[in-house]
């Protein structure tokens, strides 16, 4: 799997992402700067990592969504390419219109830096195949603007088309208001595009991919991608 990580000014989680991808693929991902106007030949997966691109100016992800490389990422997605956005990467995907909705300021106004639990709402996708549907895993989160919002019509569509990938839940898998710390609509932590090839989520599975990090709960995301993309 040839993965490319996009780096914007202010991106700061590209190294964690590179470690996770290398661990799953055995191959170092390429890092690509925001000014580039072409993806490397043979790119299978584009990853938008976390951070504070462009200092979160205007809105989180708004400036990055307009950068030259994002035109290429949008074209790649339109050709059926696989794209993963984590945290700021999810915000950028929404701002770029590659995923619906937007990420608002956390309802508490607090920056949340803690572990959360996620329930896999849709198994058998390129991003979730190595979990069973309904599986619960732990993931660190670190964001100030992770409160997923969309209008009622979009929410109905996401639910009807089964495009919610992950929901915030209790360790036992119950989706409760208490587990929904940022105030996201219906506890939504991550969503998928209709072709299941673009996925964005707020928490950081890449930060739990090695026993040395305290666990491997996030590894199935990356091993799913390796297998899914080999089959694609």
């Amino acid at each position, binding site marked *: 799997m040839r993965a490319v990580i996009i780096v914007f000014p202010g991106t700061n989680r590209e190294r964690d992402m590179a470690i996770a991808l290398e661990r799953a693929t055995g191959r170092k991902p390429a890092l690509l700067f925001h000014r580039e106007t072409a993806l490397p030949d043979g790119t299978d997966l584009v990853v938008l990592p976390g951070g504070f691109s462009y200092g979160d100016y*205007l*809105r989180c992800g*708004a400036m990055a969504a*307009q950068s030259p490389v994002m035109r290429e990422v949008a074209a790649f997605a339109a050709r059926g390419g696989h794209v993963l956005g984590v945290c700021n990467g999810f915000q950028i995907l*929404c*701002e770029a219109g590659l995923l*619906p*909705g*937007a990420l*608002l*300021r*956390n*309802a*508490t*106004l607090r920056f949340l830096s803690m572990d959360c639990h996620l329930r896999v709402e849709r198994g058998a996708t390129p991003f979730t195949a190595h979990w069973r549907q309904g599986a619960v895993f732990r993931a660190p989160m670190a964001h100030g603007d992770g*409160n997923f*919002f*969309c*209008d009622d019509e979009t929410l109905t569509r996401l639910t009807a088309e089964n495009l919610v990938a992950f929901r915030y839940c209790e360790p036992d898998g119950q989706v409760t208001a208490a587990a929904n710390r940022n*105030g996201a609509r219906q506890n939504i932590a991550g969503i998928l595009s209709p072709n299941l090839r673009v996925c964005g989520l707020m928490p950081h599975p890449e930060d739990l991919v090695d026993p040395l990090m305290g666990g491997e709960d996030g590894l199935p995301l990356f091993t799913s991608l390796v297998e899914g993309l080999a089959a694609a």
Partner: protein
Amino acid sequence: MKARVHVMPKAGVLDPQGKAIGHALEALGFAGVGEVRAGKVIELDLAETDPARAKAAAEEMARRLLANTVIESFRVEIA
């Protein structure tokens, strides 16, 4: 020609910032403050001299970048 773009959270979209400002005003002893909504104002200095065209251009800028119409509404004022 100056254009002023007012960007506000849409009705129905949670505005925790506005809520926090409201609480702070209450703590300062200001009575009778109902809902508080916080938005932003972006001022543009445009080369365009025709007010209608300047307004149309600023509205296009708002739609493409200055506002996220999923969560925000905007209003352009030409000065």
